[in-house]
């Protein structure tokens, strides 16, 4: 009887979770997985105790023998876990975290605990227990649903690394047993069907199906809670009056995270259909307006240029100093920003973090790429949009810093990180996130990608770039696109907008930038003007290079030498300016190591520029992109003068 009831309840949950709509009228995703979690926070023991009913539907044509789940919290269980081995070690073992499973059954009550195997698909580290595999007693046939019930206890880690606690502050993410993604053959780069369920690495994020979440959280009364769900109800806890119970519903998101802290001040705002909630420390009230502005600008820009934000709710958190380890992280409908008390208005850092983390609602949340394997697809694409949004709303040259004495664009910040890096050529963008050599993950995933996307935009134009992303959203929203899927979209849209202008496809661009390790560097090597015997040249009027005005006698044979110093070959424009004011703009496919342009003109060349509008932002040195024999030294003199004054005042002020 008990078994029958369990099956009935489980079926009721699956049916309600996969079909019932509370937030949106229609399901946005396939809803391959769903979770119902009832959890209680113990702020003294720093634990979350919960029971979970979850399902996975086999929507493939494969017969699947096993299920695989992430136990992310076990990354904090041992100093020898893959997570801790790859980052700094926490010596105080009392603040280690873990997840303990006390029961694990199928809906029919079959005990799965004896069947649990810890697997280490990425590095074989025997001390890592962040992934479990369970051979099912009966294989899941196409269309079957595997329903599980798990009772667990999470001991939160005491040093917050995205998730954990500090004193009375809690940010709880990646906290429950979570299904991996079963990928059938043909999906992404799969040759044969199988689970994609990676270990927890310090340099990687996550990958999950869009799911439905019904979460009941029980927390002490004084705690203020924010989550990625929509609050359905709030009530006093029946057993204990000092606790309250909050019921949340979230639909079609890839993770359910939440935070609890008694010190939060709560603010709300509205952007069209979206109710925005901001939680931040009382002391930071002066940051509220700028934070809401950042979110609303992002919503407006991404809605216009990519696609709709489909949920009516959004929560974001600006954690207090003690919770700073949770800052700058994204969970689709909840994300964390980063600011501080009295952050000056000219530093747009809080806005930048907010724009970036909210941008992940699209590039990871809606377009749910595999962050383990293709980090450039979420971090890189998102950094590109972050820079565009920042520079669009906060100033083309002042997206990051806007001070009368110093300005910096967001796109400059990204490019400079890439250009500056001594490791910019050691690896390409196609690496798994945990395989990036030390110190290159952020530079490659975020900065290089953002820079080559800007370069792509420089080649295909801003409107076509927006068309690419609109199409990408249209085709891949609430699915799991792979790099090839994004490239296919680019090829199709570029073909549609430009025909064969860039060749049969634009794969060459991705071969050079995404899959290559070379650098791009074009240089104007030299130019010269040799005065000609006019009469002799006039005899050769069939020469197509002859550009002479009949009214003038001066004639110059002008030569320009262009070098390709880097390995990357990209088409560039070449602008030649003559002393009589006229200019010629030509295109160079950028393939040869050396290119000579010869022109007959009745005036001398004054200067030459490759890529005059700095569209090819992959170019690691803009300085050698132009050449004149009469350079403007005024700025250097001015900078030197100001530097002299600064030093004089400084030395005078620090001496008695």
């Amino acid at each position, binding site marked *: 009887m008990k078994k029958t009831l369990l099956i009935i309840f489980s079926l009721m949950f699956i049916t309600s979770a996969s079909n019932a709509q509370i937030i949106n009228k229609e399901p946005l995703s396939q809803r391959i997985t769903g979770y119902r979690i009832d959890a209680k926070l113990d702020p003294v023991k720093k634990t979350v105790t919960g029971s979970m009913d979850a399902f996975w539907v086999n929507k493939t044509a494969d017969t699947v023998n096993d299920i695989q789940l992430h136990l992310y919290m076990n990354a904090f269980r041992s100093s020898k876990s893959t997570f801790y081995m790859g980052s700094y070690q926490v010596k105080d073992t009392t603040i280690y975290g873990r997840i303990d499973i006390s029961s694990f059954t199928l809906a029919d009550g079959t005990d799965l605990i004896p069947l649990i195997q810890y697997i280490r698909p990425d590095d074989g580290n025997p001390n890592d227990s962040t992934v479990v595999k369970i051979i099912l007693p009966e294989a899941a046939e196409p269309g079957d649903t595997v329903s599980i019930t798990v009772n667990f206890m999470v001991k939160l880690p005491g040093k917050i690394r995205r998730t954990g606690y500090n*004193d009375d502050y809690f940010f709880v993410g990646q906290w429950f047993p979570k299904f991996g993604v079963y990928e059938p053959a043909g999906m992404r780069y799969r040759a044969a069907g199988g689970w994609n369920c990676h270990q927890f690495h310090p340099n990687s994020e996550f990958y999950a199906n869009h799911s439905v979440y019904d979460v009941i959280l029980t927390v002490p009364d004084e705690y203020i809670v924010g989550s990625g769900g929509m609050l359905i109800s709030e009530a006093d806890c029946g057993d204990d009056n000092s606790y309250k119970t909050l019921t949340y519903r979230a639909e079609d998101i890839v993770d359910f995270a939440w935070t609890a802290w008694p*010190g939060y001040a709560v603010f709300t705002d509205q952007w069209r259909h979206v109710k925005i909630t901001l939680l931040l*420390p009382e*002391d930071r009230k002066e940051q509220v307006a700028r934070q809401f502005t950042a979110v609303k600008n992002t919503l407006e820009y991404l809605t216009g240029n990519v696609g709709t934000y489909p949920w009516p709710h959004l929560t974001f958190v600006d954690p*207090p*100093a*003690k919770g700073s380890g949770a800052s700058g992280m994204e969970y689709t409908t909840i994300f964390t920003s980063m600011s*501080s*008390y*009295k952050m000056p208005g000219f530093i747009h850092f809080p806005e930048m973090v907010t724009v970036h983390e909210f941008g992940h609602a699209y590039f990871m949340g809606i377009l749910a790429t595999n962050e383990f394997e293709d980090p450039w697809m979420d971090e890189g694409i998102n950094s590109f949009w972050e820079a565009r949004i920042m520079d669009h709303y906060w100033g083309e*040259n002042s997206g990051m810093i806007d001070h*009368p*004495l*110093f300005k*910096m*664009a967001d796109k*400059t*910040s990204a*490019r*400079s990180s890439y*250009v*500056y890096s001594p490791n910019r050529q050691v690896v390409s963008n196609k690496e798994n996130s945990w395989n990036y050599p030390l110190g290159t993950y952020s530079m490659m995933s975020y900065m290089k990608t953002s820079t080559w996307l800007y370069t792509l935009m420089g080649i295909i134009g801003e409107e076509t770039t927006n068309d690419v992303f609109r199409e990408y959203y249209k085709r891949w929203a609430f699915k799991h696109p792979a790099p090839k899927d994004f490239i296919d979209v680019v090829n199709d849209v570029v073909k549609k907008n430009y025909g064969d202008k860039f060749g049969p496809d634009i794969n060459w661009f991705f071969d050079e930038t995404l899959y290559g390790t070379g650098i791009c560097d074009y240089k104007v090597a030299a130019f010269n003007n040799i005065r000609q015997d006019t009469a002799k040249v006039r005899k050769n009027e069939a020469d197509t290079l002859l550009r002479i005005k009949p009214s003038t006698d001066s004639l110059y044979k002008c030569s320009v030498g262009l070098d390709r110093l880097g390995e990357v070959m990209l088409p560039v424009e070449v602008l030649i300016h003559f002393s009589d004011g006229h200019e010629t703009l030509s295109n160079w496919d950028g393939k040869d190591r050396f290119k000579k342009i010869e022109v007959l003109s009745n005036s001398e060349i004054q*200067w030459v*520029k490759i890529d005059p509008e700095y569209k090819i932002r992959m170019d*690691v*040195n*803009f*300085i*050698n*992109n*132009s*050449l*004149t*024999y009469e*350079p*403007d*030294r*005024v*700025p*250097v*003199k*001015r*900078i*030197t*003068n*100001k*530097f*002299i*004054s*600064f*030093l*004089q*005042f*400084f*030395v*005078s*002020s*620090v*001496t*008695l």
Partner: protein
Amino acid sequence: MKIFKALAAGFYRTLKAWKGILLIWFGSLLTVSLVAIPMKGFLKSALGGSMITEKLRDGIDFEVFGDLGSGFRNLIASFPSGLLLLVLLGILLNAFLSGGIFDTLKGSSPKFTGNDFFKACAKNFWSFLVISLIISAILSVLFILLFILPIALVAQSDSGSESAPYITAVISFALFFFVSLIFILTADYARAWQAANDKSACFSAIGYGFSRTFSKFLSSFPTMLILVAVQMLFTFLVFAIMGRWTPDTGGGVFLLFIISQIAFYTKSGLKVWRYGSVTSLKEINDLMKEEVAPPVSQNFQA
């Protein structure tokens, strides 16, 4: 009343010492040129015939400096040591030239002559250097104790308040500022005393400085506060204006150079005004003391 008398006398004496201030200005320009001219040479050579300087027309462009590559990184890396070297040179130069300046600022000083000025510079150099080093060392320790330490302690205390470190920083800095004025005053009194004495006795001078600072605190401290506040305000204004001024012609840049150097000359003048006012204050107080009772120690005579 004594304060305004000292300020007025200091101002008048500063005007008389304009040639000495000119030497300070020139010495400073020469010193910083040791760092600035190689930097200019590097920029000129690194930018070569590039037209990227277009991007520098409106001010500093981070992207351009980034593209200068490893040369620029090396330049930035060597900047702190270059700055330290400049500060050390500045201390030496200040110890030397202020010897002549304090001598010029004495009430009994005859008309400014280069010969007398440099003679006084040489005579006072070692004692002024020791005074400067001792007081600078005290100020450095105070900076750590009164400013850095409280902020570090509050930041580590995990009080939960976001504003506490900020408020602590403001209060700590204010405290350091006011306490540092006392030591600057001590240094100025000590140097004024040393300039008035033939024998080199830097420790007696510092002793005198402390004694006079605290015994005449009510007149000395407000005088110093006014003088330092004026200097700070002036420096702030200069940077606010110069920072925003981005001339884009050779003539404009030359004008910027002239005006910024005039500004620095004025800043040096304000510093000399401080020296002059403290010297005057010392003389006023010494005179009042003599009127009350004959001096006890020969060393403390003006």
